[in-house]
């Protein structure tokens, strides 16, 4: 215990030393402000790489998210908010960099912090900010998006953007006079597939040499949409960011608004939020467990896992009114209360789930094929996990002990005790076991939460908006940390930045895939539990002949005969 305290004191000193180091550039630092555990450091863009370097070398610091926002009508600048967190400290360090509108250029920090890669590309796509000394390419926007149209700039309304962009497929259909014919895109993004992601997997024989990810096929512009919705409507939109763990997004959003406005959420509401979050985690992990078994060909385990999950879904419906997208979060609390009768039923269901899941895990983990294909495949070393600022079970499976519930306590997690399961092997088995352990841990947490629910109001009477306040809300989703950063506006959020865990974790997949067998690719991709929690059809590219869409027949057959020899 005392070592933990010493540790945190040391970290705090490091933070203050960073701050003091930052202050060395006195005319380049415009101010430091501390409020609600958020340290805001306004710096000149020239010193960004230096400060980032200082932060990156500090132990336990990782990049949580970056928000780029268009504040030209306020101060005539774009502004970048780099958000860093420290493991086990409840501190967010925000580097604020103003970017003048006439010259929107910022030095890149990718070579210092790997995780910044996508954030910079996205800021370039959406706001037209140039990052110097790095390769910039389109990440989020489609290829046929018009040049020099940056959707998150305030001059474009959602309606404008919808008029501006028509996918080329429609034009083509007009050209051949086929407006009324339904166009079915066939290929890697086929609608019948689980999820519009796309991995290029380079194989030699059955062994994967490299893999590239191409994504953002369904960028829906939710952040932009949120800027036109009222505060109390956004939670319902946020909940639809993910089809499995939507509640984490609405909670995260509400927490961001509440933290920006200093709203005190009644304790009962905090407990209800925690209860629903944990129920969501159980159903999500059971779903994932089933899908993983299905990918390993053990469909019986898949069916039983989902059978057990069904009870949790019904329980969620009983408590909230919906099986999914519960729709009970509003800023300042929740909309549906729970009573003793429901608590009793919940405990009954949880007991049953605990019991059944324990048996199922024991059986399915011991299926010879399952264990053979989980153990030692898709290894992710701890060093890479730290370098990429990974989150959630993916990080914990590699021995990186990071959990927002403990590190940045929110909702009712500060009132209960729990364990954060970690495994150090970094393979698919470790990630599976992390999730399995978490299910039991969640059930344990739910017993405590359901037992301790305090009485009282479930939402604040009313709250008032103060514009241009910064708020951060983060939640440990089943897949890892979800973080929403928000700048308040008068009637709707002025800028709302969402970062889902998969955004942070996907770059790790390429590392895991190197050297695995082709047959284990789906499982390995699924092992980070990508949002929607399904895997994809991959295209196979033969390096030797550099031909796309061709399977190296010679290699495959060679493998076959080699194997026999």
């Amino acid at each position, binding site marked *: 215990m005392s070592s933990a305290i010493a540790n945190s004191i040391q970290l705090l000193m490091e933070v203050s030393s960073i701050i003091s180091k930052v202050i060395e550039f006195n005319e380049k630092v415009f101010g430091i402000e501390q409020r609600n555990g958020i340290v805001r450091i306004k710096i000149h863009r020239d010193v960004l790489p230096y400060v980032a370097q200082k932060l990156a070398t500090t132990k336990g610091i990782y990049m949580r998210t970056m928000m780029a926002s268009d504040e030209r009508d306020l101060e005539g600048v774009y502004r970048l908010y780099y958000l860093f967190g420290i493991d086990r400290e409840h501190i967010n360090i925000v580097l604020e960099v103003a970017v003048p509108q006439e010259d929107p250029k910022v030095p890149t920090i990718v070579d210092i912090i790997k995780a910044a890669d996508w954030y910079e590309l996205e800021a370039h796509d959406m706001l037209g900010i140039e990052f110097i000394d790095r390769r910039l390419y389109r990440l989020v926007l489609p290829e046929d998006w018009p040049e020099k149209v940056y959707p998150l700039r305030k001059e474009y309304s959602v309606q404008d953007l919808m008029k501006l962009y028509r996918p080329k497929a429609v034009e083509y259909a007009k050209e051949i006079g086929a407006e009324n014919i339904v166009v079915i895109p066939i290929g890697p993004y086929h609608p019948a597939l689980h999820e519009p992601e796309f991995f290029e997997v380079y194989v030699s024989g059955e062994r994967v040499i490299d893999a590239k990810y191409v994504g953002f096929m369904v960028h829906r512009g939710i952040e932009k949409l949120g800027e036109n919705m009222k505060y109390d409507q956004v939670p319902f939109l946020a909940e639809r960011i993910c089809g499995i763990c939507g509640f984490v997004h609405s909670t995260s959003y509400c927490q961001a608004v509440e933290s920006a406005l200093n709203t005190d959420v009644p304790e009962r509401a905090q407990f209800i939020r925690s209860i629903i979050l944990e129920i969501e985690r159980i159903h999500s992990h059971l779903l994932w467990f089933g899908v993983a078994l299905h990918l390993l060909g053990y469909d019986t385990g898949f069916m039983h896992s989902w059978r057990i999950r069904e009870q949790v879904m019904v329980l969620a*419906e009983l408590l909230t009114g919906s099986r999914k*997208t519960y*729709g009970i979060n509003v800023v300042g609390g929740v909309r549906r209360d729970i009573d003793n009768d429901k608590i009793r039923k919940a405990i009954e269901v949880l007991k049953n789930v605990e019991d059944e899941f324990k048996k199922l895990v024991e059986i399915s983990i011991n299926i010879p094929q399952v264990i053979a294909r989980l153990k030692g495949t898709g290894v992710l070393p701890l060093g890479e996990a730290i370098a990429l600022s990974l989150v959630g079970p993916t990080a914990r499976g590699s021995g990186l002990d990071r959990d927002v519930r403990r590190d940045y306590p929110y909702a009712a997690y500060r009132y209960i005790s729990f364990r954060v399961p970690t495994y150090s092997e970094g393979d698919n088995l470790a990630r599976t076991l992390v999730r399995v352990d978490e299910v039991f841990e969640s059930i344990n947490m739910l017993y405590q939460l359901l037992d301790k629910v305090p009485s009282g109001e479930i939402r604040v009477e009313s709250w008032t908006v103060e514009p241009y306040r910064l708020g951060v809300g983060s939640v440990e989703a089943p897949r890892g940390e979800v973080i929403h950063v928000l700048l308040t506006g008068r009637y709707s959020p002025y800028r709302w930045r969402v970062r889902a865990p998969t955004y942070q974790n996907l770059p790790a997949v390429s590392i895991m895939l190197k050297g695995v067998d082709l047959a284990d690719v789906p499982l390995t991709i699924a092992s980070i539990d990508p949002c929607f929690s399904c895997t994809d059809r991959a295209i196979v590219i033969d390096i030797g002949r550099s031909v796309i869409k061709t399977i190296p027949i010679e290699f495959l057959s060679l493998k076959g005969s080699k194997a026999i020899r």
Partner: protein
Amino acid sequence: MVKFLKILPIAIKTGTVTIKYPYQEPLITESFRGAIEIDPNKCVGCGACTRICPPKALTMTIESNTIILKYFVGRCIFCGMCADTCPEKAISITKEFELATGNIFDLYADVEHEVKTCPICGKTFITRKLSDKIISKVPDIPLETMDLCPDCRRKETLKKFIGVPE
């Protein structure tokens, strides 16, 4: 070694959990929120629900001399915010969720309201019911200007106080 056999007793004990839907009743708990139902008698056409509805499943349109409150269940996310908001408690949440249909018009439900037309400028501005409601709720409201649209009402009130400008 033979742990995988242990699934058999579990399967036997559990039996069959899937059901012959729709021939058997689906499981819905008492808290389930389905499509909403608007009671045309209670609704006064204030429009509060259309402003809160997150996906804009409820909309209001003015057509000649009626205001139509349109509910398109195809957009509805069954959140129940409208029911929470309605001052008249005209909206109730049903348990209806089997809404698939071959005819898109089955997905619409309309409540029509007679609209008030301003006798001076001819603008339509409010439903008659809402106006009646306001009259009944607010004591000593100036009845003579209640028929006018907000613009004309302001002008008329001004006229009363400072006289007709030449």
